[in-house]
């Protein structure tokens, strides 16, 4: 029974961390159709921001929940203004340019901070469930993910900003005719996506430690989650994370983490063969 509870927690955590690392990409790729291959590096920069802020004396919660998202959102604005805005609608060029950007960030961070693992110890400690010990921090991440997804939903659905953003993504010319500056909306939306990625990177940093190349570990998983999810970004991200997270964790439990990852990626490739439009291309079509 305890084992089942612990396993369930691990599965929940796998789902939550998938949703967490994909949330920023769901906004940037799912909404804006910008194929951001530097997404992993946004997560990496968020992790570095949190660790450096913590090590220089700022409270760990402030540096994770506030400093990291703000830093990465600022980087997002710079990237959008200098690079992405020339490439809207040119998907393949966007892919190539953001891949270049990803290499550039890896090189830059390696030059500045060196090619070594840095970390901070994860806060909150542990608790025991029967014979097993669980990290409370994992529970915290599950909670944050739920709150974050709810917040994204509310912002998109209930606020004027969300309405404007969705409208602009659907028809930029119409939005422009109605007196909204699409340039500004794109920049803000991109920054929000980048900020979400920064937050995710920061939250996971205490668990994983951080190296300049850590983005590589995230990029494929977040892309297949968003693509596997399909057109409705929130429902899609949640349903795809649930599917892939469960597969990953169960296979990991049966064999090893490597096979868990491999199973996740193989499942994603098969899913795309069966449902090229993603899960929400077939099910939950009217959701958001």
């Amino acid at each position: 029974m305890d084992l089942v509870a612990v396993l369930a927690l691990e599965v929940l955590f796998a789902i939550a961390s998938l949703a967490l690392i994909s949330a920023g990409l769901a906004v940037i790729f799912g909404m804006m159709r910008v194929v951001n291959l530097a997404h992993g590096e946004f997560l990496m920069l968020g992790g570095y921001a949190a660790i450096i802020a913590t090590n220089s004396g700022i409270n760990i919660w402030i540096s994770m929940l506030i400093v990291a998202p703000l830093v990465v959102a600022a980087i997002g604005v710079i990237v959008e203004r200098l690079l992405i805005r020339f490439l809207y609608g040119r998907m393949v060029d966007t892919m190539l340019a953001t891949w270049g950007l990803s290499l550039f960030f890896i090189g830059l961070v390696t030059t500045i901070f060196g090619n070594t693992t840095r970390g901070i110890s994860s806060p909150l400690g542990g608790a025991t469930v029967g014979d097993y010990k669980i990290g409370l921090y994992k529970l915290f991440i599950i909670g944050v993910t739920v709150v974050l997804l709810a917040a994204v939903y509310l912002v998109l659905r209930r606020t004027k900003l969300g309405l404007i953003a969705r409208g602009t993504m659907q028809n930029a010319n119409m939005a422009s005719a109605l007196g909204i500056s699409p340039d500004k909306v794109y920049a803000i939306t991109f920054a929000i996506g980048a900020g979400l990625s920064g937050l995710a990177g920061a939250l996971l940093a205490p668990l994983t430690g951080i190296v300049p190349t850590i983005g590589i570990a995230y990029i494929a998983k977040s892309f297949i989650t968003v693509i596997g999810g399909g057109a409705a970004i929130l429902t899609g991200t949640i349903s795809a994370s649930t599917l892939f997270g469960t597969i990953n964790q169960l296979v990991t439990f049966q064999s090893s983490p490597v096979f868990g990852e491999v199973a996740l990626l193989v499942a994603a490739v098969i899913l795309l063969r069966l449902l090229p439009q993603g899960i929400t291309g077939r099910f939950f079509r009217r959701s958001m």
Partner: protein
Amino acid sequence: MRLDADNIGLIVAAVGGLALLFGLPLVVELFTLLQFTVYIVMAILALSLALIWGFGGILCFGQAVFFGLGAYAYTIAVFNIGESTVPVLLSIVVPAAFAAALGYFMFYGRLSDVYMGVVTLVVTLIFFSFMNHTAGEEYRIGASRLGGFNGIPAIPPINMPGDPGRVLWPEEMYYVAMGSLTAIYIGLRLLLRSHFGRVIVAIRENETRAELLGYDVRLHKLLIFSIGGAIAGLAGCLFANWNAFVDPTVFGLGQTAQIIIWVIVGGLGTLIGPVIGAMLLQYITTWLGTVEVANSSLVMGAILVVFVLLVPRGLVPTLQLLWQKLRGGRSDPGIVATPREAVESGDD
């Protein structure tokens, strides 16, 4: 054979290739020749992507998979067999077969360009992380351990077919590599002139149109993808020989990114461009490694961004256009077409 521009180009390529093949060993030292051998191997790898992306219109982020599969197939087979003829063949067949299987998923699933990019990227990562974790004693194929992140050292070099005692000298490896490059280049030029090649380009230009004309788009893409996989596999085999060592970085994202950068910099939609791009950038990477002024991935990333934004056609087509402007002649529609735009307009 008529003497039109295309045939003249072929003759120039053949003569140039042969001149380099026999001339270079006479003028440079062995060390330079060895350096050159690896540039040539990378040029072969660049050609494989130049074919499937530049002419087939298939954006593949997984070219490193075929390269790595070729390297590992040769290595594992040569340890098991002890003679290199069959392993060399395997290093071509295994990646081609894998490309066919992967291509079946992608082309018969009718994945769009972007999804195809992501799927190939995912496959690259699967191989990379899987091969990294095969360090244990239990991961072995026949007499060869997989070695995981430690790699496989002391790979036996290619020998004369049928005579395992007579292995090729490094200088002879140069002849093999340069000969392969010349042969593949000319072979691809001829392939692209054939009926099959023209259908491939027609598909790149407009998939629906080609399909309505009665061509099986999926099958053609599958075939060209497999040919690309085979060429990349041969490059992997030659690389394993040159290096006498393979490790999972051959499957890495860095490797895959490099190939794409070579093609972009050299010029998409040409064959000679990626060859030049590969050699030039390999030279720059080696040089950066020696002088240590900047991290090479930082420089490569910057080069990629700059080329996508400012020189989207790549070096060779841009120079061709400039040359034509200088001569004031009519522009040749063949080189004005930029495949990347054509691909995209068909996509959305």
